[in-house]
């Protein structure tokens, strides 16, 4: 049987401002058979999305096809006239983007967008399309399928929107699906649910798919064939089993090495205790905080309730939990961006003013914030030396030659060449920008760095390099870290202590090795078991665990009474867990679990 899609010596160039051409894809060939899932894997800049989009005859603005063919059923889609390309898009080849939140038009209903393509292409009447959409909502296990179409994108959750995008792509029964990092932005628990839904719906519909990702563990769950790309060239191409279990190319092996092992005890790099003093560097005591103004000064939406966390000098506290659990809010309280409504924040044992505006310059200097998105945190109109120079001048009072010297030291510290001082952020890659973002926080010579998802937007290899850098900085400077991430594997390798947040409460905390080995809080167990493993067949096994059955595909709900994890917990006791606040069980060495169940019962 001939292949459905044949990509044949495809070349794509980027046209620069000076009209010069830079090759992005350098003669790539592979094919996709009917009913087959081919994964394109590589880091950003490898050209994987560009290649995948060529199956639709589409190149992003600024890119040009300069050679080769992309044949769908033998016809080249690149040289097709535009109206034929349009007739093909959505009908025969459908695209699923990375961020469903950005891909859905906020002003139109979900139903209109899901059914738009088949109706426009004359495949289905409006009524037929609505029925087909409803059928897909059911297949993708979306709630309230008969009324979902009338809602707007902002009215459903992120994981649901991601599955709705699959419905949008599948509505016209395309022969080929292009999936572009469709689970990268999701929490682990949502990711495995979405993966499962994609996999079963692809099997059911019998469509072929190109799956673009940088995450090998995800690929292992879904792909039949794998194409490994680097800088616009194919490095290795073979069946999933062969590429994952017997990789032959160097680059593939490097990619495999950068995949973090599933989180477990004993992966951490012990921090030295040389910098330790009596009082913790930063401590929050009985903090309650939230947004909005309710009665008698309490926030109308309590996001954090009664939180106690201490960060020892030179240590790293990892904060983990799904989105909506209050991780960023905790960092905002520590930094003073969001004053706590109850409780206190202590720096070196001294009480800090709750709000940023009341803290003095010395206190501000000691606690610095590293934001998730370097793109938005760095002013695009300021050069790097200006960005780094401001905090140096403001906190350390250095000017002129001394300031320039310090900027050089900072760039050296984050392993960037000194000439970067004269560049603008847009001239830097994602990983380099994140290093500058880090250097900006270090410029103040802080004692505590609050890192909010600093590597979440980076590729595996680039992210691993940033973690190595952080480990080195921790050793050299004795800075303490509060490291927020939804990625448990990163935290397992970097943190000395872990705080597990669920719905604004600490459900488990303690030394990393204790938290990552039994006994677990049921939520911790759910998080650990949801991290994809680089092993074919893992997804099916993971979906069978009782944690997965009880806890996956539920949203985090803030509750006032009882244990917030009640409705997702396989061990929940009705009448107790939903009515009474769980007791804190102290298991020694600072390890504590907040649960009604006893230590013996978590061990199962």
């Amino acid at each position, binding site marked *: 049987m001939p292949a459905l899609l044949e990509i044949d010596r495809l070349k794509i160039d980027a046209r620069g401002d000076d009209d010069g051409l830079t090759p992005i894809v350098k003669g790539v060939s592979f094919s996709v058979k009917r009913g087959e899932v081919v994964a394109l894997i590589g880091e950003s800049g490898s050209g994987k999305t560009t290649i995948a*989009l060529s199956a*639709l005859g*589409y190149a*992003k603005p600024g890119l040009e096809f300069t050679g080769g063919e992309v044949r769908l059923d033998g016809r080249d889609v690149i040289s097709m006239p535009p109206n034929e*390309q*349009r*007739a*093909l*898009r*959505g*009908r025969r080849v*459908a*695209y699923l*983007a990375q*961020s469903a939140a*950005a*891909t*859905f*038009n*906020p*002003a*139109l209903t979900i139903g209109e967008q899901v059914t*738009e*393509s088949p109706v*426009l*292409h004359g495949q289905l009447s409006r009524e037929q399309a609505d029925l087909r959409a409803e059928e897909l909502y059911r297949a993708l296990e979306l709630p309230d399928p008969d009324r979902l179409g009338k*809602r*707007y994108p*902002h*009215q459903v959750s992120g994981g649901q929107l991601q599955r709705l995008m699959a419905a*949008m792509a599948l509505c016209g029964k395309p022969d080929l699906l292009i999936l572009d990092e469709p689970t990268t932005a999701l929490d682990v628990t949502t990711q495995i649910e979405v993966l499962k839904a994609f996999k079963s719906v692809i099997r059911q519909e019998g469509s072929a798919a190109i799956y673009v990702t940088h995450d090998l563990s995800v690929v292992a769950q879904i792909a039949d064939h794998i194409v490994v790309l680097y800088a616009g060239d194919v490095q290795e191409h073979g069946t999933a089993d062969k590429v994952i279990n017997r990789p032959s190319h160097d680059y593939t092996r490097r990619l495999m090495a950068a995949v973090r092992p599933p989180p477990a005890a004993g992966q951490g790099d012990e921090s030295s205790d040389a910098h330790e003093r009596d009082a913790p560097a930063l401590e929050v005591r009985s903090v309650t905080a939230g947004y909005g103004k309710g009665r008698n000064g309490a926030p109308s939406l309590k996001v954090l309730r009664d939180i106690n966390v201490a960060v020892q000098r030179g240590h790293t506290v990892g904060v983990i939990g799904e989105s909506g659990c209050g991780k960023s809010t905790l960092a905002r309280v520590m930094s003073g961006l969001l004053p706590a409504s109850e409780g206190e924040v202590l720096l070196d044992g001294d009480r800090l003013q709750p709000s940023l505006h009341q803290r003095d310059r010395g206190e501000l200097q000691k606690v610095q914030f590293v934001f998730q998105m370097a793109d938005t945190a760095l002013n695009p109109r300021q050069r790097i030396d200006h960005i780094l120079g401001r905090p140096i001048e403001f906190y350390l009072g250095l000017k002129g030659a001394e300031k320039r010297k310090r900027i050089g030291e900072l760039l050296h510290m984050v392993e960037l060449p000194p000439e970067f001082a004269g560049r603008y952020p847009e001239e830097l890659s994602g990983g380099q920008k994140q290093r500058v973002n880090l250097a900006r926080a270090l410029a103040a010579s802080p004692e505590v760095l609050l890192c909010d998802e600093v590597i979440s937007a980076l590729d595996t290899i680039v992210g691993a390099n940033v973690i190595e850098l952080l480990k080195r900085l921790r050793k050299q400077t004795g800075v303490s870290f509060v490291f927020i991430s939804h990625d448990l594997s990163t935290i397992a390798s970097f943190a000395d202590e872990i705080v597990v947040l669920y719905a604004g409460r600490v459900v488990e905390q303690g030394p990393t090795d204790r938290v990552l080995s039994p006994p677990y809080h049921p939520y911790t167990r759910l998080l650990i078991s949801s991290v994809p493993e680089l092993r074919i067949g893992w997804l099916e096994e993971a979906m069978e665990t009782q944690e997965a059955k009880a806890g996956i595909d539920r949203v985090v709900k803030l509750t006032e009474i009882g244990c917030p994890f009640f409705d997702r917990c396989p061990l929940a006791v009705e009448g107790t867990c939903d009515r009474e606040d769980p007791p804190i069980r102290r298991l020694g060495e600072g390890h504590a679990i907040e649960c009604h169940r006893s230590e013996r019962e978590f061990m199962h």
Partner: protein
Amino acid sequence: MLLHAMLRRIAVGIATLLVVSVLIFIGTSVLPGDVANIILGQMATPESLAALRAKLGLDQPAHVRYFFWLGNLMTGDLGVSKAGSGFGTIGTPISEMLVPRMWNTIRLAGVVAAVAVPLSMALGLLAAMYPGTRLDRIVTFTTLGLISVPEFLVATFLVLVVAVYLGWLPATAYMSGNETGWQLVKALAMPTLTLVIVASSQIMRMTRATVLNVMSSPYIEMAILKGVPRQRIILRHALFNAIGPIVNVVALNLAYLVSGVVIVETIFAYPGLAKLMIDAVQTRDLPLVQACAMIFCATYIVLIFIADMASILSNPRLRHPK
């Protein structure tokens, strides 16, 4: 939530109007001389001035006069003309003087808006549909040029070409109030043309910029990849998300058509509200000045309120809360 936002904005609008009324009152009070001076002119003696001031209520303290004026304003009593500007005489009720002028202004503004708004939005959309093409460059260049030229120059140039050189239309748009049909069209043509040029450029540029901005968002790329035709992408996917800023610039331009067209009205001798206000300032007919100023401010506030409401209504997050 929607009702709440609406009520809040109405309250803010009323508060703004009150603040404006104070400013207008102070502004007119500090003008040198008063109505008594003007009326008596050469015959003024200290005694006659004092007597006239007492008769006109000008001897009261400022805050008393303000509340008296405000109270009358709220009951719809705009007072009587104290100098007889325009075609009125001393003692003509101001409302009688305002109504025909207001009607003229509304007629001109209405005709201009009916032409300029659809025209400029269509041109803006066209330019945004084909960015970088010759069509886009011609439209962009022309509107940029027209924005940069002051309106009196546009008006004078039009008079020179259309009225003097070609002789197609009269140079002035003076109206007795009895014009009908063709006469009316001829009278309105020149000022309309001038104002359409001035108002369209801004709306067109804003439409183009906003739609282009929306066109670079991921959901537009998604629509392209779904095989949605270009026309539908612009009209269904992009325009709806661009409506907020466009409505705002339309509102500002409409408000300008009511209050800011004094130069055009003067050049074409068109008897509108703005010209009435200038006449009133020259004759120090303060009640008339105050009334005109209040009308202009109220127009701005009402139009901006409507624009705000339109942008709220075009935002599904506010229309359909979670």
